[in-house]
């Protein structure tokens, strides 16, 4: 499936951004977050690789960012969607094995879990760590 058809087949809205300002070539906002697995498949069929998965805390929930890139042209594409805190999202490790660590890191830092992830664990923070440090509500433990 050509990527042009992405907007027709999924609940995506194209966000208008200029390359110079943002650094992404294309960006889409996804409404139904469970569609991310099929979107990842569509990107993979076109030869894209997964550059990163990350998130940020908007204050009223999380915004997830999936960044896809391809080798043969300048075409860095971001797919955003909004997710509540403590949500369970669909894992895309079956599509991109590289998502294994990316999703673990997002879980480690933000506390969202991924359904279908083979080994979801706290990737970077030490054993016995409480809370999810990149949430704005997180405070370091008092000594």
């Amino acid at each position, binding site marked *: 499936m050509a990527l042009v058809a992405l907007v027709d087949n999924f609940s995506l809205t194209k966000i208008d951004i200029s390359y110079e*300002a943002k*650094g992404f070539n294309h960006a889409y906002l996804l409404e139904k977050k469970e569609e991310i697995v099929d979107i990842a498949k569509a990107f*993979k069929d076109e030869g894209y*690789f997964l550059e990163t998965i990350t998130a940020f805390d908007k204050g009223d929930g999380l915004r997830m960012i999936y960044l896809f890139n391809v080798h043969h*042209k300048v075409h860095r594409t971001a797919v955003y969607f909004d997710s509540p805190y403590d949500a369970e999202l669909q894992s895309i490790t079956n599509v*991109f094995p590289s998502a294994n660590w990316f999703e673990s890191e997002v879980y480690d830092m933000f506390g969202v879990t991924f359904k279908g992830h083979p080994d979801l664990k706290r990737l970077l923070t*030490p054993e016995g760590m409480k809370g999810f440090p990149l949430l704005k509500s997180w405070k370091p433990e008092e000594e």
Partner: protein
Amino acid sequence: MDTVKEIKKDFFINMGPQHPSTHGVLRIVLNVEGEKVLSSETVLGYAHRGVEKMAESKTYIQMMPVMDRFDYVSSMLFEWGYVGALEKALGVKVPERAEYIRVIMGELNRIASHLLWVGAFLLDLGAFTPFLWVFDARERIMDMFEEVTGQRMTNNYFRIGGVKDDLTPQFFKMLQDFLKMIRERMKDTEDLIESIIFLERVKDIGFISKQDVIDYGLTGPVARGSGFSYDLRKNEPYSVYDKIDFEIPVGEKGDCYDRYKVRMKEVIQSVRIVEQALNLLPDGPYTEKSPKVVKLPEGEYYNAVETSRGLLGVYIVSDGSTKPARFKLRDPAFSNLSILDKLLPGNKISDVVAILGSIDVVIPEIDR
């Protein structure tokens, strides 16, 4: 005989977190049967310092010296990624002389990083002499950095809109001496390294296929060793790389030897870039006047550069204040290392060292 049967044939062995060949604090749990690795698990986080959280309480300018402390062997390339993101956000135009200075310093840093890698890789494989040969050359680069930036490592040299100081006459003299010796030194070193023992140890192990490169999001020399001609300096030219003529070396098979060879060839290409940049270096200011207080307009900014290990993405979410709302690094070695657990099974323990070495990881960059 019954007692013998009860002895388990496979067992677990910890490689690291403190192990000379993991170059930092990386732990690999190996499940081995005799010398053969059955499976492995890479455990990260021993050098995690929470920099992404720390960034949220630091101003943009306070974060600049921190950028050196991820990949401390090619720190200026990380600075480049960060100031590039800020320049994009602020719309600062960099003077041409500054761009060429950045290219010269960045490429020297890439050479230094690859030389360090070759030395350490050979040291892991049990060869000591090449380490001394490449470190002599690397030491000259460190001296040049000290001359211009005041620091050998963690240089803190890049500024918004330029660089901290202009190049000095002494620097040019040192650079000319360096350029005179480096090609011959690389050739001598290659002749020294590529003995039958080395070739037997690195050839035909740790295969990374083209599909793996896409599956695991590999970039840098690891991807190029498998035949992907992907280098941001060519594919998404930033700075003045589009005015400079250089090649992207690629491997064929994607084994450890190809990744070694790609890095050795990249050193020569970087030397070519430095020579051209030196000829093209224009006169003029080496920096724009940069603002005292940096406030990014509200929005998201992403800047990608090619470091010596691959694609570095610096992602900043700004809420319009002097501090980032979110600061994230897409660092190359994190993705490159994630393929390790797939590569190791079936190999001997001594090959683990060669395969891990060929990926070229710097732990503080991965753990952040």
